[in-house]
């Protein structure tokens, strides 16, 4: 199955079953949170373009409580601008540096 998910900028990200299986295999905690990943693309707190790879879109959304994982975690979803596919996703407790250039919301 392939899902097209529209972000607030009108960009369509694609999440396939194959992508999701890969994500859940490498990051087993993500198994129950496919819906969170879609929500993060649809209604993010911020969208960034990668600092060292500007073709990478990074979606960030804070979740105050993630069952079984902890409180106040950022879900980060990485999508390729060119192929539109979701590359990976995981929860982050802390970011040492900025995620890249903020492209949404614009200042």
């Amino acid at each position: 199955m392939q899902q097209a998910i529209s972000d607030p900028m009108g960009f369509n990200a694609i999440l396939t079953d194959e992508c999701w299986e890969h994500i859940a295999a490498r990051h087993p905690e993500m198994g129950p949170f496919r819906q969170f990943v879609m929500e993060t693309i649809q209604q993010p707190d911020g969208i960034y373009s990668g600092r060292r790879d500007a073709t990478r879109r990074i979606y960030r959304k804070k979740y105050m409580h993630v069952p079984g994982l902890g409180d106040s975690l950022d879900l980060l979803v990485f999508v390729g601008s060119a192929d539109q596919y979701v590359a990976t996703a995981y929860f982050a407790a802390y970011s040492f540096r900025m995620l890249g250039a903020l492209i949404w919301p614009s200042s």
Partner: protein
Amino acid sequence: MAFQLVQKFKFDKVEHSYDPRGDVLDISFGPPVRGIALQVEDWLAIRVGLEPPFLQGMTIVGFKKVFERINRYAERELPDRMKRLANVRIKISISYDDESDTVVYRWEQERSAFDGLLDKLSFHKMGKPSIFEPLLRPGKFPPPLMAADQSLRNVYVEKSLPSKDILGIKIVEFTKCGPSALEGIFGAIIDTIFEPNPEYDENVHLITNAVVQRLDWQKFATLGA
């Protein structure tokens, strides 16, 4: 001294999975388990296992794109580099002195049993002589863009004498600026690898080389220079 922690890192159970379509490299120390990430850079995350907390692995998003700038063969050499990583043994000790509010990190690559036997027979059991130098020399500080950059003023590099090999780092006023100093060190190392910058002077380059050599990525640094 308030405490001293010694942590040994072994990477012999290293596993990796590279997804060429997403250009994502996942490295885990043992089979992947539930964890959360500490995002070091927008392309680099350290994964921490939950039960109990431990270094579980790392995720590099855009592996080929990021690393092809300094090594065009990064993807091809990946299996060999993972094999070498499996042989790395690192011991890190962390000491905190509450009177001076100072933390000292020291690291060393674990030695063979024969080397250990020689050490025990050696007359030089006392600590080897060393000196501390500021990480950044006065007048050579980078522009103070972030608190982390400012905190680098509180970081000192421990060097052996007379060879001046890097032995570790010391952070003063740790309660006030320890986390941001660590953040600054991470940033300086990554900038030195990927964006060589004259504002970071010799000691930052030496620390970066020490880290790179221990991960056997020396060739990366050489190609990047």
